[in-house]
């Protein structure tokens, strides 16, 4: 249908998690382009550049040194430049408090990091295809909430 990519960014301080994440996308059938950042400060430095390519989906780890995922989320939600950005929280935490709190702060997706690679692929595939449905069918993005 198109030759373009779904552009994806992940901010996560754990190197293994970043690698798994990139590998999982390589095996999906939808064309994606993945960039990763090692923490929230690097991420925001990039996004705040004038010529930054704003991704379609941003994955945020919650616990990162220097600047946490939640701080990034709040900063992004306060900036009109990012109003079309879909935000996925990507965390080891499954506490109901974290989940509800980040949804309320404007996250669209909450993913608890799965323990095995196969599950990860399945989850990421479902995120990208659901996002694609919202994107191509003009669905109301403010109602886009997905927990996996």
């Amino acid at each position, binding site marked *: *249908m*198109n*030759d*373009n990519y779904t552009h994806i960014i992940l901010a996560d301080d754990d190197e293994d998690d970043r690698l798994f994440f990139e590998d999982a996308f390589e095996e999906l*059938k*939808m064309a994606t382009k993945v960039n990763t950042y090692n923490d929230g400060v690097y991420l925001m430095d990039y996004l705040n550049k004038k010529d930054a390519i704003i991704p379609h989906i941003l994955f945020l780890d919650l616990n990162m040194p220097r600047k946490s995922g939640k701080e990034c989320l709040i900063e992004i*939600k306060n900036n009109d430049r990012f109003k079309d950005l879909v935000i996925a929280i990507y965390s080891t935490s499954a506490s109901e408090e974290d989940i*509800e709190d980040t*949804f*309320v*702060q*404007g996250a669209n997706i*909450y993913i608890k990091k799965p323990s095995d690679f196969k599950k990860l692929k399945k989850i990421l595939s479902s995120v990208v*295809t*659901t996002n*694609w*449905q919202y*994107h*191509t*069918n003009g*669905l*109301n993005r*403010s*109602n886009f*909430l*997905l*927990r*996996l």
Partner: protein
Amino acid sequence: MKVFIKFNFNAVCAKVLQEKLDVLGVKHTISGFGEVDFTKELTIEKREKLIELLAPYDIEIVEDHKSILVQKIKDTIIDMVYNTDTEITIKSSTYLSQKLGHSYGYLANLFSEVTYTSIENFIILQKIEYTKHLILNENLSLTEIAFKLNYSSVAHLSTQFKNTTGITPSAFQRIIAKRKELNI
């Protein structure tokens, strides 16, 4: 002396497209995936003008039969989900195949090939999106919505909502209400 140049093809194409659409002077938005949304239907003259403007760059309007049929499937489903007044008593697969004049198997294969999702999932997605709309904007109870959307029971709707979104309808309602309070 040689100078090396790097191209960003996507940026080039987007820029050309933008410039030509501005020349055309019709209200539109570029959705970024090789799709242009026109606020109003394009007139035949404008459409031909656009084809002419883009031709020197080898940019074409895609008229492929598959995309058009997929759009028809989507339109039929959306109509089916949202127009709850006209009650459809037959199965949605039969309805689609009768309405569009192709076998369901053909439609289903084509649909998943182009949209990365199945017709069944698309119907569920549309129903759940409509449910969200009804919860938030029409203030209907889940029981009323289940009846309106032809679910056999409120439990069935509730389960489908949870399976599709990962959260319960009441959690959804609570989160959106809190967002409104915080102005997010």
